[in-house]
């Protein structure tokens, strides 16, 4: 049995497919792809798949890791080609590697958020991102019970930048995305909207990749 790390992109309308559903979709894809899978040895044998960092609904991903376990001879290139032949439109395997880092090394995720171009938008966003009063409401557990919690997002923004092109305003932001701490870019936007008193809906959100504690790309 050996473990391989599959890197894939998820773009287009498939971004509206939730994490759980992508898991099922990938499980079926590896079954279709003629890959000699290792099956768990319980009462309900199933292939082993580990998505290291779930993706929020409505977010595209360019560099998403997925670990699978295989048994038998197959090259990394074959795994990639076989999978790409059977994956639904929107998901593409970009490379297959050894798992160099452990999932515990995951700490941050880099996002690009696209907005419809508007006057003063860059300045407004900048003002909001600089403030230390960005607060959003999030479902969380208080004393073991599910409650709506207020979360301060400002202290979690590791890094951000804003730029403009002909069509849109783009925010690049690095947010916590590890096993212990995780901030969804939608939460950040909620907080920004609350701060500015606006109702901005992004055109698109793209997760560029995952990073470790030192902001080195996860491998």
């Amino acid at each position, binding site marked *: 049995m050996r473990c391989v790390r599959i890197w894939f992109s998820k773009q287009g309308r498939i971004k509206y497919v939730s994490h*759980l559903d*992508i898991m099922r979709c990938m499980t*079926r*894809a590896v079954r279709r792809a003629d890959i000699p899978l290792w099956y768990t040895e319980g009462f309900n*044998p199933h292939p082993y798949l580990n998505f290291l960092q779930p993706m929020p609904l409505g977010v595209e991903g360019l560099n998403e890791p997925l670990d699978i376990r295989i048994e038998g001879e197959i090259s990394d290139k074959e795994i990639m080609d076989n999978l790409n032949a*059977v994956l639904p439109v929107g998901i593409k395997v970009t490379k297959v590697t050894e798992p160099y880092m452990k999932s515990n090394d995951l700490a941050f995720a880099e996002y690009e958020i696209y907005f419809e171009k508007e006057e003063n938008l860059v300045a407004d966003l900048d003002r909001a991102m600089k403030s230390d009063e960005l607060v959003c409401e999030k479902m969380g557990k208080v004393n073991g019970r599910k409650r709506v919690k207020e979360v301060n997002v400002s202290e979690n923004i590791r890094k951000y930048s804003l730029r403009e092109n002909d069509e849109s305003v783009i925010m690049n932001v690095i947010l916590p995305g590890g096993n212990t701490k995780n901030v969804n870019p939608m939460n950040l936007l909620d907080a920004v909207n609350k701060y500015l008193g606006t109702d901005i809906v992004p055109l698109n959100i793209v997760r560029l990749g995952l990073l470790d504690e030192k902001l080195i790309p996860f491998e």
Partner: protein
Amino acid sequence: MKREVEKVLGLVQKPARYTGGELNEVIKNKDEVDLRYAFCFPDTYEIGMSNLGMRILYSLINARDDAWCERVFAPDVDMEEIMRQRNIPLFALESGDYIKDFDAIGFSLSYELCYTNLLNMLDLAGLPVLAKDRHDLTPIVMAGGACACNPEPIADFVDFFQLGEGEEMMNDVLDLLKECKKNGESKEEFLKKAAQIQGIYVPSLYDVEYNEDGTVKCVTAKENAPEKVTKRIISDMDTVFYPDKFVVPFIDIVHDRVVTEIFRGCTRGCRFCQACFLNRPIREKSVDVINEDCKKLCASSGYDEISLCSLSSSDYSELPELLSELLSWATDDKINVALPSLRVDNFPEELIKKLNEVRRSGLTFAPEAGTQRLRDVINKNVTEAEVLETSKKAFSGGWCAVKLYFMLGLPTETMEDVEGIAQLAQKVVNAFYYNPDKPKGKGVNVSVSASSFVPKPFTPFQWEAQDTPEMLEAKQEHLKESVTTKKVTLKFHKIPISFLEGVFARGDRKLCEVILKAWQKGCKFDSWDDHFRFDTWMETFRECGLDPAFYASRKRDFSEVLPWDHLDYGIRREYLENECRKAYEAATTPQCREKCSACGANKLNGGKCDAMCKNMVQ
């Protein structure tokens, strides 16, 4: 996908219901096809995507070079609200194009309570809901499925119905539509020609007259339409089209697995069961063909479960051969084979073991009635000893949860029969504890689901009165009181929903007005407990001057003209009358393989019926 749709996807629950893009969906160039077909299922994505009829017809239409079939489902209420706010018309999943611009819109009618959704979808599409207000040839609106056997309650909304099996009929219809469209013919001309295709029922070509008491006096065909419309069937299951690919949904749907039919029809003749009589005669698919279908579908979908579909799986004549063929490769591929609709009387022990090699599934029995007398009335030829014997085997095989299905309100039912349900469940519980091989350290759970009986057309009980809601309520209460152990859990169907189903099932054209008005008042998703608005329905009946009890709770005389008497599903009316009389005497009818009781359905297949030729010495 249209941009205005994409914009709202972030605002709704489960947006993947509306995006399309699933594996194996069919994309064509719309400029290269002559016909665009919107296959509509009047319920949500999760329900509709599970429908086998839709999967078959979707692939069948798309196998034609000249047509492109796309899928459409009823948007859930949150999506509908946004669509109406922003004037987004109903669109098809594959192209995202609006279905009002399509050539044909086909609805699959699996249950009566979807009728308001059909109206709602037409309206969301931007089309008039009444057939007479849609003047152009396209889009033509058709419907098929189980409810097409009595389509009268929705006769005003649908241009024509397909009775019976669609595999050949659909192609005939599309050929005609293509020609009429090319020649610029009118909708009326098309419908007149369509009525000549076997299985096609054009309600506008039939006039219905009523007696003073509200019953049907007569139905008269005009414009050369046939006096009786006979349902269409497929004669050879081995050569008929079957898909080698299923669209594989992203989101979890109700039946998310490979499904292969093993035969159509049913040999058992349980008197309450509409599916049995609507789908006769028996036609089996051969082992090799089923095996090949399963292999192809598993390979193209990646599913890890196969379900063999029929009305009574264990009645398939070559079941052991089929299972060993399937399991010879499925086990290695970690694919589970599920066999729903098993009969308790012939559940072979070695099959339990074989089927459990990969994964264990649930165990469900349907004794339907609590006492032997009542089981004889409904011709469910299952004895208590058989139920207990099979449960014991299952418990020895490691199961510790059993589901039992019953019906309340069956003809001639008494409170004693209701108590019988609780007693039978108790005996199953006891069978577990007295069983020396029972799973160690585990308790048993017997889940009893009691639905309310709804008399349906084309069954021996089509003349029967449905129990009134009050009677059903009393019976549910009595059953609750009769259960004394916590090992038995009870589940009931909502009585008002069953009542409305009973009204529609045997309704006539006068109900069109009620359905239209109730929909205008906001009724939709009537089969969903949380959307069902019984008071609105009752108010609407009053406004229309109609009594719902006239349809549901009234016993009909054999001499009465039934609203569906001009439709022919192959079963002789005299046979049904005779079965009904036998029911009162609690006299059973042997199943078809033992003795043919001449229901008449084999005339549809040139006198052939697989129940006879495979197992009977003639």
